[in-house]
């Protein structure tokens, strides 16, 4: 399977939204274009596992014999036309995530921060420069100026706090393309500030303007403009997507786990990040060991099929015809593999339940061996244990049952002995019951529960036929691919609702008995 995970260095939703210089945008676009060739803008790069059936045509056309009645050709079931079921039971390797956090992740926020700081300090610069440069020539400006100073100070404070609250957050993801709204806002801020500086430089610094009050008002108008841009930023980045407009169906390709989400107006890449955030907490963890039918059932199907071609006219189209005939015959043949599947499932179910029962009993019993130390109890210090020791003390009695259960449910790669001990310690500390302790092992939890601590992040590839910065629309389909599985997302619009009202008079609720009497006469 073609697994190209592209890790891109484009920052997504980061701290300061009001920054980026034009050169950076150009650089982003150039870089994104250079990556295009491998992925293809308009092509779907979702590939299914396993070899395609009809790929390898047999090249027998040239050696066809003219006395076709006397020769027979045999294509056995193990030729290149067959589908190898080994492909379906591929073992997935655990890929090493890149160890170090990529510094490119913070490039965008850093630039945004720089632009934000620059924009923030500009009004102060506007106020201070005349004072520093030609203080004696300025007209004295009394009370109105001081009033403006106060309002300016408070507006700047509000700007600062709002920026801190909204934009100073660590970025959640890096997107393949530039984040359109955010770069738009950065460009806007830059233009604003640049034009204000231009005007200031030409009309105030050059002629050494003496009307200080006008300068202060000018600085105040810049702060107002910045506040409005921040309002625009809030609306575009945070608020617009809150109202739900689309319903997304997310299906995991390997085991069919699916969920429906309501989402607002977003671009495809932002929607992808939103979905992935919910994926980590909603979907049960992907366990490759649980996916496949046992070999004993599948292998019965491939008991060699011999197809005899008793000489057709043109043998070049034969291969497709033969494969189709083989498949059709296999489908029509009365096979009892469903029977075996059913019994195997039932047996598996029974086994799991038995192990689960043993585990529950073992854990319950283990938990009865310890109890919290009450102050009234007189115990000598040797018998007092901290949670870790208590956990180790009772772990031994349940270890075997636990291990057997995990092995039956194929969960043992996810839980090492150390992790079980730690969890036990945690549960003991918080006075949890055995059932609460077992909750983690009895049901496969969401992926985030098993998230190993690494700061480099998870790599996902967004596969889409449309440009990923375009907005979601009805009927769009895109996929989020990882090494061994992918999530296919279908977009549907939430239907328009016509809500009508109907008034019911409370006095109109009246009832009669349903009669069916029988009278004898």
């Amino acid at each position: 399977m073609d697994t190209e995970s592209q890790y891109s260095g484009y920052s997504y939703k980061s701290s300061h939204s009001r920054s980026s210089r034009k050169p950076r945008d150009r650089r982003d676009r150039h870089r994104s274009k250079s990556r295009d060739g491998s992925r293809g803008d308009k092509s779907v790069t979702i590939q299914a596992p396993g070899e395609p059936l009809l790929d390898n045509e047999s090249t027998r056309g040239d050696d066809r014999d003219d006395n076709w009645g006397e020769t027979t050709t045999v294509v056995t079931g193990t030729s290149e036309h067959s589908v190898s079921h080994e492909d379906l039971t591929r073992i997935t390797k655990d890929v090493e995530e890149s160890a170090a956090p990529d510094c490119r992740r913070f490039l965008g926020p850093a630039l945004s921060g720089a632009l934000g700081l620059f924009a923030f300090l500009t009004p102060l610069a506007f106020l201070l420069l005349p004072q520093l440069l030609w203080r004696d020539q300025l007209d004295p400006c009394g009370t109105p100026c001081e009033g403006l100073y106060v309002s300016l100070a408070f507006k700047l404070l509000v700007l600062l706090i709002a920026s801190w609250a909204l934009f100073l957050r660590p970025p959640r993801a890096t997107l393949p393309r530039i984040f359109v709204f955010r770069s738009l806002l950065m460009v806007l801020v830059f233009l604003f500030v640049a034009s204000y500086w231009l005007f200031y430089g030409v009309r105030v610094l050059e002629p050494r303007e003496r009307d200080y009050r006008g300068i202060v008002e000018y600085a105040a108008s810049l702060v107002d403009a910045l506040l409005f841009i921040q309002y625009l930023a809030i609306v575009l980045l945070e608020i617009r997507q809150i109202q739900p407009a689309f319903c997304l169906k997310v299906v995991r390709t390997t085991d069919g786990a699916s969920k429906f989400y309501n989402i607002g107006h977003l671009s495809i890449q932002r929607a992808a990040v939103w979905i992935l955030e919910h994926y980590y907490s909603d979907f049960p963890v992907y366990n490759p060991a649980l996916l496949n039918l046992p070999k004993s059932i599948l292998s019965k199907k491939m008991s060699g099929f011999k197809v005899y071609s008793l000489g057709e006219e043109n043998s070049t189209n034969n291969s497709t015809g033969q494969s189709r005939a083989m498949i059709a015959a296999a489908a029509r043949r009365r096979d009892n593999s469903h029977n075996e599947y059913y019994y195997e499932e039932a047996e598996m179910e029974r086994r799991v339940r038995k192990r689960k029962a043993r585990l529950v009993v073992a854990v319950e019993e283990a938990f009865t061996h310890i109890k919290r130390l009450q102050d009234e109890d007189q115990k000598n210090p040797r018998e007092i244990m901290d949670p870790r020791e208590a956990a180790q003390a009772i772990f031994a009695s349940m270890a075997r049952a636990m291990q057997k259960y995990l092995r039956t449910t194929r969960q043992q790669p996810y839980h090492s002995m150390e992790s079980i001990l730690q969890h036990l310690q945690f549960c003991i500390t918080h006075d949890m019951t055995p059932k609460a302790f077992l909750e983690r092992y009895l049901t496969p939890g969401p992926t985030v529960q098993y998230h190993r601590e690494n700061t480099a992040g998870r790599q996902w590839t967004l596969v889409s036929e449309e440009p990923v910065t375009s907005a979601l629309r009805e009927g769009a389909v895109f996929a989020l691919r990882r090494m061994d599985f992918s999530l296919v997302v279908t977009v549907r619009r939430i239907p328009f609702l016509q809500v009508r009202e109907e008034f019911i008079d409370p006095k109109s609720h009246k009832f009669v008995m349903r009669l069916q009497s029988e009278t004898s006469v």
Partner: protein
Amino acid sequence: MSYIPGQPVTAVVQRIEIHKLRHGDNLILGFSIGGGIDQDPGQNPYSEDKTDKGIYVTRVSEGGPAEVAGLMIGDKIMQVNGWDMTMVTHDQARKRLTKKNEDIVRLLVTRKSLENAVRHSMLQ
């Protein structure tokens, strides 16, 4: 036995004459009725059309006057002594049947087998 509102109801009926039996102070006929326009027609087990609110015979007591006269369970009573029984309440029906001054009641009843019999004979 379905009817179209406003159109006359036609049915093949059988005339049954029941002589009331004096039992102590009461005159009894020996059957039970169900149905009526104030009752729930959906629970009638004997009607073909579950919106039919007519009066049906739900029980015929053994050896009673009704059984002797030939009344059968599931019959729909169309007339009693000339009084219509297709559009009456349950209580009105009871009253028409249990008039103290009448000793004989002449019923017109209909059932499905009657229609079938007539149809058979018409075909032959």
